[in-house]
């Protein structure tokens, strides 16, 4: 019963406190995708007239102080300081060097207290005190001694604090806006795609996931998310193209050319959150921004073989889903970078996870092709049957690809032979290939249900 009363008391107290808080502070936070945020903190300040120091304690602990600026009517800024000297017991003692403190000795046998005034001489390795004419080391005997300081030094604080010294004109309360950049806030998109095997359609939900590790809580903030990375292009996801190394699988099949109705800022898309929200420190927050049903999707198989790739055992083909982001028969939106997770219903109708794939910022009207994982039943074995040296710089390679399908339905595997470097020609092949690019040949091989298929090709490479 006491707990009930207690919690009622709490809530009532919150009710009383909340409107006042909302009235004198308005926060707006703009979060970019690459760990950067612009915080605009608008609050009422009391201007006394004349020189005055204004402290902002609840700014981000990771604030970039050089980007901070305070704007308010009828004041001029003298200087701006960011104090990151934090209040710790050691600092407290260090700042007391040359000052008097009170020490309280406690007699371990009787518990009796003896008070003395002491002058702190040094704090190097241990605390050296001058008590009257005696010099002692604090707690040298290991007995309990309390040290009481008169006050906490001015510029030592629990949290890093931004302070601005201003000269105010007329006295009075007026609104001021503090804006600064801070890392520690970031966002990405998370997509949930439910694939319906019966009619080859997907339902896609998009969530904005934002995380805050900046050290403070942003209360009741108006939040705007910016899709696009202002300073760096693609946060290092792309590997450099090494000599004949395998490139990462491209997910964007066709770049879109449609423009959506979403708000833009330059080349970036803006995702404002509909309501004010509190972004607590270390919180992970998700807000929905996309919900589309019944988008046609295509399921296929893909196998990429590197140049002269040969395998002792069959390798699984990749299971690939592709769909469009176009307004016609597509998602009808541009997609901010993130991770798309695929689900599919099992025999009982419960959704089960079948794999995920990362996507880049994708314009509207694009075609995406995403690999969710390896197919258990569709496998390919690539074999270099023969390598013949035609001349010093001219080789002939006979390749054989054996495809197997343990599924009770026929499948078509998109087979890609990569690394056709230099002057590479296909002199013979059992099925017509298309050259997707100079370095990649592509075959669409149909494998009947519960059966095998084979493809041979002879490459003539000269360099």
């Amino acid at each position: 019963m006491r707990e009930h009363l207690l919690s009622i008391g709490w809530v009532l107290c919150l009710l009383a406190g909340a409107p006042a808080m909302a009235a004198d502070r308005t926060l707006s936070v703009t979060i970019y995708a690459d760990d950067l945020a612009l915080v605009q903190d608008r609050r009422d300040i009391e201007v006394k007239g004349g020189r005055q120091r204004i402290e902002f304690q609840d700014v981000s602990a990771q604030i970039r102080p050089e980007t901070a600026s305070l704007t308010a009517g009828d004041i001029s800024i003298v200087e701006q300081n960011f104090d990151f000297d934090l209040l710790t017991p050691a600092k407290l003692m260090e700042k007391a060097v040359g000052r008097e403190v009170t020490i309280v000795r406690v007699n371990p046998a009787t518990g009796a207290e003896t008070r003395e005034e002491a002058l702190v001489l040094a704090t190097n390795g241990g605390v050296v005190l001058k008590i009257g004419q005696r010099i002692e080391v604090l707690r040298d005997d290991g007995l309990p001694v309390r040290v009481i300081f008169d006050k906490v030094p001015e510029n030592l604080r629990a949290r890093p604090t931004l302070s601005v010294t201003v000269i105010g004109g007329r006295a009075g309360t007026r609104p001021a806006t503090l804006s600064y950049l801070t890392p520690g806030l970031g966002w990405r998109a998370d997509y949930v795609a439910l694939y319906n095997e019966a009619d080859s359609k997907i339902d896609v939900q998009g969530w904005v996931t934002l995380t805050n590790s900046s050290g403070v809580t942003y209360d009741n903030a108006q939040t705007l998310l910016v899709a696009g990375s202002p300073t760096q292009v693609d946060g290092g996801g792309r590997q450099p193209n090494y000599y004949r190394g395998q490139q990462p699988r491209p997910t964007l099949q066709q770049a879109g050319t449609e423009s959506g109705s979403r708000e833009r800022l330059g080349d970036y898309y803006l995702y404002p959150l509909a309501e004010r929200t509190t972004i607590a420190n270390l919180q992970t927050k998700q807000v929905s921004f996309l919900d589309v049903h019944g988008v046609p999707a295509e399921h296929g198989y893909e196998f990429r073989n590197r140049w002269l790739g040969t395998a002792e055992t069959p390798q699984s083909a990749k299971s690939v889903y592709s769909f469009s982001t176009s307004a016609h028969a597509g998602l009808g939106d541009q997609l901010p970078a993130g991770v798309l997770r695929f689900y599919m219903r099992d025999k009982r109708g419960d959704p089960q996870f079948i794999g995920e794939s990362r996507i880049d910022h994708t314009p509207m009207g694009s075609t995406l092709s995403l690999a969710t994982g390896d197919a258990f039943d569709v496998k390919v074995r690539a074999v270099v049957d023969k390598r013949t040296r035609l001349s010093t710089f001219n080789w002939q390679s006979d390749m054989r690809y054996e495809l197997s399908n343990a599924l009770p339905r026929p499948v078509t595997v998109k087979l890609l032979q990569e690394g056709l470097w230099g002057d590479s020609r296909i002199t013979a092949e059992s099925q017509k290939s298309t050259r997707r690019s100079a370095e990649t040949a592509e075959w669409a091989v149909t494998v009947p249900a519960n059966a095998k298929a084979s493809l041979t090709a002879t490459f003539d490479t000269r360099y």
Partner: protein
Amino acid sequence: MRGATNRGRHSMRLLPASRFALAWILAATPAMAADTLASMPSDLSVTVYRAPTRRSGSITLSALGGFALISETRIVRLPAGLSRLRFEGVADGIEPSTAIVTGLPAGVIEKNREGKLLSPTALVAAAVGKPVTLLRTDKKTGKSARLAGTIRSDAGGGVVFETSEGAEALRCSGLPESLSFMGVADLAATPTLSVQVRSAEPVTRTVTLSYLARDFDWGADYVATVAADGKTMDLGAWVTLANGNGGGLPSAQLQVVAGRVNRESGEVEPLDVGGPILAQCWPRGSTSDLPQYLQIDRAWPLGAARNRAAGAINPMAMAAAGLAEVTATAKKVEQEQLGDLKLYRVPERTTVASRQSKQVRLLDRSSIPITHVYGADLAGDDDAMSAAAHLLLRTINDAAHHLGLPLPSGRVAVFAARDGATLLDHESNLRDLAVDEEVEVDMGDSPDVQVRAAKETTTIDPARTHELPLVPGVLHLRSAQVEAVNHVDISNALGVEIQFELRLRLPEGGRVVRADHPLGSKNGRPIFRLTIPANETVTVRYQWQHTTG
């Protein structure tokens, strides 16, 4: 500190009822969200996925690299207006960005996962600038004094508080001191997921919360028993799954999925699990001290601590227990197709307790025809090489061989029959095998079958040499091809005739030009398929060349 934590938990359990009553009062104020607690799961479904990086082999209890999809059915009562719906007791390995809540009325505003957990340091951090009570106990008399004060700072691991007497540092005096706090500042014991939702009217709904959680894994553990005549084997298998999370999953529908699914190496959402109040002090050197360095005790990250705990389980004992159970009859898992993956459903509801590994029967097949194949790999120019041959058990995964079902990757223990009992012969790994694929179980080296390779004669054909003028008229380089007759002896000390495969790995463009045994080809490589009679030695001679077309 333990006392304070327990009190926090206790009051949290009592709160929901009182908060329900309050929700009505709060409905009038739109800015405030009423706190609503979802019921504990009334139904649970768990689907365990293997570690995406492990292509074969069994699980490691100390490092569970897989994950699970957990779906919980819960009942929620929402008041009219804005409410904060909290889901307590989710698995601690939850990846908050994967959480999906279905069944709520329209009006989900946002989903949150708080990363700050209730811990001693979190309590102090939340109390900075707020009134607390300092408890100071006299060691001699046992009397404790309560002193009202304010925490001024918790920076750098030390605590500075201020009372009416002045500023002091916590636990720097050598007296027993501790803090007592006013409330738990809305901190939860485990990562808690909450949803901000607005409902037009009070509703009761059944919702499903599903999410991916780390620290699960599974693998298949096969036991193959080779018959005394060596012509057939029996194959049995267990699904071995493990939960490394601190929370159990009671009476759950359990599934495992075979096949490799893509996982993007996801960034881990920030989480502060806190730590003890360290009470760092000012320099405490004394005149009898040698120079000393501050030792800062670091709190272990969540996963690390868990892994250490899991490491306490002896995997060997586990495996032995698994083997002992082989003879027991059990209900088998049911297999179904899930897209391009294989889903295995445990037929009955089961409880997956915290930090537990569990075994469910996967399959039992008997009298599978097998062949023993010995083999060796030789590079084309190996000279004076001697090695034991490699033994493989080979069969085909089809109905004719009493198999013909998907075999998920795992570990195989091969036992040999001996006088009615079985002995462990060899252990090896198995990859995912689809129907109709060739199954090869690695049996290790066989010292009774030895392979010795040597170059018998080497010659240079003058017609095939080339002069390369390096400095014309002064220095010449001669390119010549050494032609060697290679000689391989395969000796069989076994009392039975064996099948032997000698595989050659020739340099690029190399081709066998002469051989005294019929030459075949496998995977683009030359191979001699030989039959070695009991207790005899067979010699193969061959010659290879770089060829130009």
